[in-house]
């Protein structure tokens, strides 16, 4: 198939349908609007379900119901709406249900703004809801990657029986790029656990997250964490760019990483050996790949569109061996390549003597 020019949000919506998404439940919020609008136009024509829910809470619970019945289901929102979905996300994870949740991030906290931000890293990676659980988190940094990760998110959610998030942002969602939709067969996995009517041929299935006996609840959580070990071995993915000989490795995900790449190229032209490390999966975090990327570096410059969230993980996973500097813009502001280049230059002068902040 040839390339078409599409907005990130619309490409995500198209990719979801091609990945076999049968049901989409949404609620209006900027800047994810195009996902709902696109699916409203196309979903029913292709035999799927589009339904505008009365709230984010209802939308995530409709997604829970559809996923529990065994079909591929998705919901999308932007930052404040994701907070409302967190209850449902916790139940979905606790019920071992696969589904895809899209967060086209905007500035926060509170109502915040409607311009792009990455301020929901901690929410997505550390605490998407109450209780001990994880959610797969994919962070695309191009429209093409948004498409590829949408396919992957559905597959991996099914494989590991857990919710998967596409952590996009207003920039990824709104910009247009040429994109190609890979031709592929949708091979949904067998879901013998699904609540789709037992047809008098098997025992009844129960999808539940309540365990009143502490030992049984603990066993259930521990068995889920066993599965997370498998996820952490199999799924981490990252891009390392010019890191082999880099003195300064810039770390960032999604939109921030994309801008940082330009800054890294500009730094190289100025004779500064800079590189870029970009995690593509935020949970599971590519720890091994990070340590490989910073193997020869003297310092790390973490760039995010927030006040510094992933930086804690960068420090943790490199065990603070290197100074880790931070440059962030927030509130809907997008860092320019020039700003990041300036920070790279400052860091290259500080060298390895500086303290790890």
């Amino acid at each position, binding site marked *: 198939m040839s390339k078409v020019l599409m907005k990130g949000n619309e490409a995500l919506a198209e990719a979801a349908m091609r990945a076999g998404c*049968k*049901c989409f*439940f949404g609620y209006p919020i900027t800047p994810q609007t195009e996902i709902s609008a696109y699916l409203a136009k196309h979903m029913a024509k292709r035999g799927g*379900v589009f*339904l505008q*829910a*009365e*709230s984010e*809470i*209802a*939308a995530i*619970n*409709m*997604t*829970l*119901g*559809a*996923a*529990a*019945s*065994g*079909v591929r*289901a998705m919901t999308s929102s932007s930052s404040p709406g994701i907070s409302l979905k967190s*209850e*449902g996300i916790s*139940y979905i994870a606790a*019920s071992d249900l696969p589904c895809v949740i899209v967060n086209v991030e905007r500035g926060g906290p509170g109502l915040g703004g409607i311009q792009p931000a990455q301020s929901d890293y901690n929410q997505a990676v550390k605490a998407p809801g109450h209780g001990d659980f994880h959610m797969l988190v994919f962070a695309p940094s191009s429209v093409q990657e948004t498409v590829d990760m949408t396919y992957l998110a559905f597959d991996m959610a099914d494989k590991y029986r857990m919710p998967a998030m596409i952590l996009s942002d207003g920039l990824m969602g709104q910009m247009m790029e040429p994109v190609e939709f890979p031709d592929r067969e949708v091979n949904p996995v067998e879901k013998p656990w699904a*609540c*789709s*009517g*037992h*047809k*008098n*041929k098997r025992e*009844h*299935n*129960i*999808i*539940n*997250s*309540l365990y009143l006996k502490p030992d049984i609840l603990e066993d259930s959580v521990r068995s889920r964490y066993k599965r997370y070990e498998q996820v952490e071995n199999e799924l981490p993915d990252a891009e390392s760019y010019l890191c082999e000989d880099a003195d300064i490795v810039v770390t960032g995900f999604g939109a921030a990483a994309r801008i940082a790449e330009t800054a890294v190229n500009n730094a190289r032209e100025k004779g500064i050996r800079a590189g870029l490390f970009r995690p593509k999966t935020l949970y599971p975090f590519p720890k091994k790949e990070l340590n490989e990327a910073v193997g020869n570096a003297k310092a790390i410059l973490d760039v995010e569109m927030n006040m510094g969230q992933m930086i804690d993980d960068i420090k943790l996973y490199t065990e603070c061996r290197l100074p880790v500097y931070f440059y962030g813009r927030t509130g809907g502001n997008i860092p320019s390549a020039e700003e990041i280049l300036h920070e790279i230059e400052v860091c290259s002068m500080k060298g390895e003597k500086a303290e790890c902040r």
Partner: protein
Amino acid sequence: MQVVFDRPKALCDVPLHYCPGCTHGIIHRITAEVIDELGIEGDTVGICPVGCAVTAYDYFGCDMIEAPHGRAPAVATGVKRANPDLTVFTYQGDGDLAAIGTCETVHAAARGENITVIFVNNTIYGMTGGQMAPTTIPGQVTQTTPYGRKPEMNGFPVRMCEMLATLDGTALAQRVAVDSVPHIKEAKAAIKKAFENQINKRGFSIVEILSTCPTNWGMTPSEAMERLRSEMIPYYPLGVYRDTDVWNGQ
């Protein structure tokens, strides 16, 4: 030997955890009898609430999903939209349906979702030990209204059937009780109609069942039945508040 009375097939052969005198057992039974009579157990998915009936997933023989508090109508919507040929019912208490889940209830009805809602109204939060519910009657003493519910402080109860009857998407809104054999028969007929409505794609059907909570009311089962008759029915009159075919015309 002829068996004249037996456990409905759609009710699992397990001990129920409900308190002595609680009417959930009656409501479970008549719901299961309806599922048996319609022969739909293999194509039915039930959605449990949060509250006393949370473990109804262990009692009904069909596939069962346990929803977050109040979200059962949204979960049911997801199941039903994904699988229009399944019969989907929710089983919810008054705190679940009429307080935290009011939004999901009202909008499922407004959309005319082809689902069946079994709404058990006992005017109290049972599972958490007897707090004021959205349905607690003025003057009723609960753990959080120790001096009786005062409307000037706690507001007024919500009459769900009357409210939902105003919505175009509601096919059936009927209030019944389970305090006597004639009322139980009436309740079962209403539940059956609510399931048949779904099978015939007539729209959203809710059966509100006035129920007792002897434990949290601090009464014997028979006193509780008497309170149902003397206090609840006058405040929540039994009857059919709406009966129409939303999607196929009359």
